[in-house]
């Protein structure tokens, strides 16, 4: 389409006092974006000096994957090419998996948005809170080119995400696409997921009163929101219990509103699993977090829930079957049919309730209002269930007595490599349920052990019994999600963290199927090392179980929620994962004057080599996390996934630290290619142990263009020495001068550089340092040739500094 046709030619954009350009000169294709809206956003947000400094300012509203290929393909996939497990189809499989992972969240965003539209209308204003402005709508701004001010604009953003997901699905079926094309689409689909999550989070905080720190001053954020006890142990016996599972919070919110209106909150227990568990405490402090989505089956089989309300999410099993097993009643509220349940939103509440009471195991109610009404009516009328859903110790021992000494097939079958057979035999030999404790703690009840057992022992029943036994003790302090960070927090962080007091930002996310001890240790370890730890998703509840025996505090009492050094903040549920790259996305605006509107590449390229920011994703992961990771790495957040055992992660984006030619940047002033330290070493790499994960995360955070490198390097070296008893083999590659070396041990490091790595010095003066290419140079030359050297750098040629003579033009 020509610029005349799409209207860009007629739109002049004026930035600052002296800069004016036609919108069509920076936007090749508006793709239906409103040019006047984009003009307004740019005139409000763009910084004149920045525009005039870079070689080419180019925007891509409603970007397709190929619009961002200069970043995806020329930078990311060039340096960290994908490595697949399996055959030649793997890139397509990887994309299909990413698309699958996006689907349920985008579908839920649509369900929630449609509900909000039906209640409030398209003109209903949305905002992110008192201390956020329109520019804080990160994903909508960067991908669509406008700040959404109302539900209608959120609708436009989500429609864009839906259409892009369709294209990604189409690409996954293309027979002749290259790996790079397919991975570009996977990155893009992941980005669309994060955009849909922004739509969801905006609706949650803007219209449904979810906790958000965006209304608070910086000093008030630290201990907000207030803590409360939750968990299975916090449930009061004798009360009817309803549990919500899945992503759609609306039926849960409506039910709580009804309970509040009728002053019945004390009479019933409202619980959550998965995203519902993370959402519930953000508007109802009596809500109970009872489990991660990946452990849903184990939680449900304890039989404590009278009513189960399910919605789309990462469900990997048949809810109808599970409801039947414990005589619970199921109300399915998802967007698509489930388990053969009939859709009955148009039926009268009494009729639905009557059917459910008379033995119908479940109904499908797409209308969330009807779902909440039926749930409420059921809670009032449902009689006590027979009980006895969990094995007692004697019965369990009798079951275990079938286990023979010369068989470990259940351990072999366990995807998490748990030593199940030893636990079963110990139970058989009279050691009680504690014999199963270690395996049960990590067991997600995938039932592989049941299937593998030649004696047909119901091992999963033993696990459930051991788990149920721990119920009363499962009580811990949780603070609800605080939502995303304010720009003021980022700016404040810049003053504190970047000046050498923190090893950086660390996202810790997962689906709650890892060893809880591991995620707790990771979060505590990083925060105690002065890291800025941001947690989101199902693993938050697991992490919240950590109790520090020395300080006698739960982790959410121990660390503040502000995004400052030595913090561990709960951002929220799965949809809060979209907040994780904020340091890379927001700081381009705050520190370099980069407008983010329709400007994805410049935004992430500006911060990629500067900000210490990475994420650890821990536990065997559903497809959604696969998609989230694609979106994260594209936005400049390298990821460690693990643990390897039990993980089904079939695509890595690894670097090769010994191949020094792979790691380079452009010096922005000269556009000269400079070779730099291997950083980030990888974009996606698996770790086998929690120690590996933390160490690699610290390594990721040593970036070429950051100042105060000593703190970041210290994090890498110290964790390696502490966990593995030796220095990492590549550590000299990160040292440019003695000033980079941690003060504690600097003399020792220098001595080792001399003894083993070819450095030569005379007194305090460094005389010779070997470059990666084999040449030996003096200190001055070394800094001139290797590393970013304090100069502005970029990986995208058009973002280099415009030559002076061009500036004059």
């Amino acid at each position, binding site marked *: 389409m020509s610029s005349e046709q799409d209207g860009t030619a007629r739109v002049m954009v004026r930035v600052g006092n002296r800069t004016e350009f036609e919108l069509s000169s920076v936007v090749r294709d508006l793709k239906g974006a409103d040019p006047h809206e984009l003009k307004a956003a740019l005139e409000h947000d763009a910084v004149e000096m920045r525009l005039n400094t870079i070689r080419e300012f180019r925007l891509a509203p409603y970007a397709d994957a190929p619009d961002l290929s200069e970043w995806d393909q020329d930078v990311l996939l060039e340096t960290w090419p994908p490595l697949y497990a399996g055959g030649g189809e793997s890139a397509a499989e990887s994309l299909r998996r990413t698309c699958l992972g996006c689907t349920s969240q985008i579908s839920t965003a649509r369900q929630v948005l449609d509900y909000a539209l039906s209640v409030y209308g398209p003109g209903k204003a949305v905002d992110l809170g008192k201390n956020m402005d329109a520019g804080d709508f990160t994903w909508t701004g960067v991908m669509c080119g406008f700040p959404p001010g109302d539900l209608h604009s959120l609708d436009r953003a989500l429609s864009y995400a839906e259409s892009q997901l369709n294209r990604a699905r189409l690409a996954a079926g293309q027979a002749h696409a290259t790996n790079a094309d397919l991975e570009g689409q996977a990155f893009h689909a992941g980005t669309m997921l994060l955009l849909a999550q922004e739509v969801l989070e905006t609706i949650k905080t803007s219209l449904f009163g979810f906790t958000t720190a965006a209304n608070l001053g910086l000093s008030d954020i630290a201990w907000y929101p207030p803590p409360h006890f939750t968990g299975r142990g916090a449930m009061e016996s004798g009360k009817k219990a309803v549990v919500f599972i899945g992503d759609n919070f609306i039926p849960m919110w409506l039910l709580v509103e009804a309970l509040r209106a009728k002053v019945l909150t004390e009479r019933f227990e409202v619980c959550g699993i998965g995203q519902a568990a993370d959402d519930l405490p953000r508007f109802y402090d009596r809500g109970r977090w009872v489990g991660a989505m990946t452990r849903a089956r184990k939680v449900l089989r304890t039989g404590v829930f009278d009513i189960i309300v399910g919605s789309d999410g990462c469900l990997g099993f048949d809810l109808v079957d599970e409801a039947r097993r414990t005589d619970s009643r199921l109300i399915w509220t998802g967007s698509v049919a489930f388990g053969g349940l009939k859709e009955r939103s148009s039926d009268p509440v009494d009729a639905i309730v009557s059917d459910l009471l008379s033995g119908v195991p479940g109904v499908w109610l797409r209308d969330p209002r009807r779902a909440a009404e039926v749930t409420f009516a059921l809670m009032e009328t449902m009689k006590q269930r027979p009980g006895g859903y969990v094995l007692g110790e004697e019965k369990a021992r009798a079951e275990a007595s079938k286990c023979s000494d010369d068989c*470990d*097939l259940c351990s072999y079958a366990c995807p998490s490599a748990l*030593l199940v057979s030893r636990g079963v035999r110990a139970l058989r030999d009279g050691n009680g349920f504690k014999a199963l404790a270690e395996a049960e703690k990590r067991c997600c009840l995938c039932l592989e052990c049941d299937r593998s057992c030649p004696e047909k022992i119901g091992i999963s029943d033993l696990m459930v019994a051991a788990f149920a036994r721990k119920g009363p003790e499962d009580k811990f302090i949780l603070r609800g999600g605080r939502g995303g960070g304010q720009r003021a927090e980022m700016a404040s962080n810049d003053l504190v963290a970047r000046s050498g007091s923190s090893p950086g930002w660390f996202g810790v996310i997962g689906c709650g199927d890892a060893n809880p001890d591991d995620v707790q240790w990771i979060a505590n370890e990083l925060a105690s090392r002065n890291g800025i730890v941001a947690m989101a998703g199902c693993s938050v509840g697991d992490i919240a179980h950590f109790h520090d025996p020395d300080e006698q505090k739960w982790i959410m009492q121990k660390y503040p929620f502000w995004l400052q050094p030595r913090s561990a903040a709960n951002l929220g549920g799965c949809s809060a994962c979209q907040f994780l790259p904020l340091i890379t996305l927001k700081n381009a605006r705050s520190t370099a004057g980069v407008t983010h509107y329709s400007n994805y590449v410049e935004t992430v390229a500006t911060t990629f080599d500067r900000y210490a920011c990475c994420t650890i994703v821990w536990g065997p992961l559903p497809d959604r996390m696969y998609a989230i990771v694609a979106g994260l790495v594209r936005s400049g957040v390298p990821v460690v996934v693990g643990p*390897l055992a039990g993980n089904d992660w079939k695509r890595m984006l690894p670097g*090769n630290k010994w191949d020094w030619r792979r790691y380079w940047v452009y010096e922005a002033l000269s556009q000269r290619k400079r070779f730099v330290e291997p950083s980030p070493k990888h974009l996606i790499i698996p770790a086998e142990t929690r120690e590996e994960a933390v160490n690699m995360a610290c390594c990721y955070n040593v970036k070429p263009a950051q100042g105060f490198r000593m703190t970041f390097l210290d994090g890498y070296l110290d964790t390696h020495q502490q966990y593995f*008893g030796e220095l990492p083999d590549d550590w000299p590659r990160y040292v440019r001068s003695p000033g980079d070396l941690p003060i504690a041990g600097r003399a020792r490091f220098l001595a080792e550089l001399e003894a083993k790595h070819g450095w030569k010095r005379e007194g305090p003066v460094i005389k010779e340092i070997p470059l990666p290419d084999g040449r030996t140079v003096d200190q001055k030359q070394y800094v001139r040739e290797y590393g970013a050297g304090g100069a502005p750098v970029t990986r995208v040629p058009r973002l280099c500094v415009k030559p002076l003579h061009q500036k004059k033009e």
Partner: protein
Amino acid sequence: MSVLKPRDLGKYVKSKKNPLVITGALCDEVDFPEAKRKLLDFAVDMSKKLKDRPIAACANTVVGLKQKGVTNTKKMWVGEIVEYTRDPWMEPMIKDRPDVLVFLGYTPRSMGWLCSMARDIDTVALGYQAVEQATHSLPDTVSFTDYRKNLEEFVKAL
């Protein structure tokens, strides 16, 4: 893929000029109480029998290996090692490109995953079950006791 008897697999590895043994997290987790041995002990045995050939100590195994007297080892990352196989070999620990990667201390599923990623190199999976994606692997067992016996035979043949 072929499943070899432990003795034959041992002979095969012994016949290789430049094998690289890779030890994973399970080396620290799996033990054989009836023999009072850990899986890691078999890595130590392999190092001795292979005349101090290097061991790529992945996960946290470097700590235990060094404690048990293995000197030609260092902390490495299994994801990085398989990545190295698709480039000209540059890892300085072992001068030339290995002619076989020997995995110990991984689940069969993880080994399958790793073997399928490694390029143009033979792979040996020393797991408790056969690994389809490996060039050669130990046979299926039904118990850790059988697995230990397989490993003992394998080491004996080195």
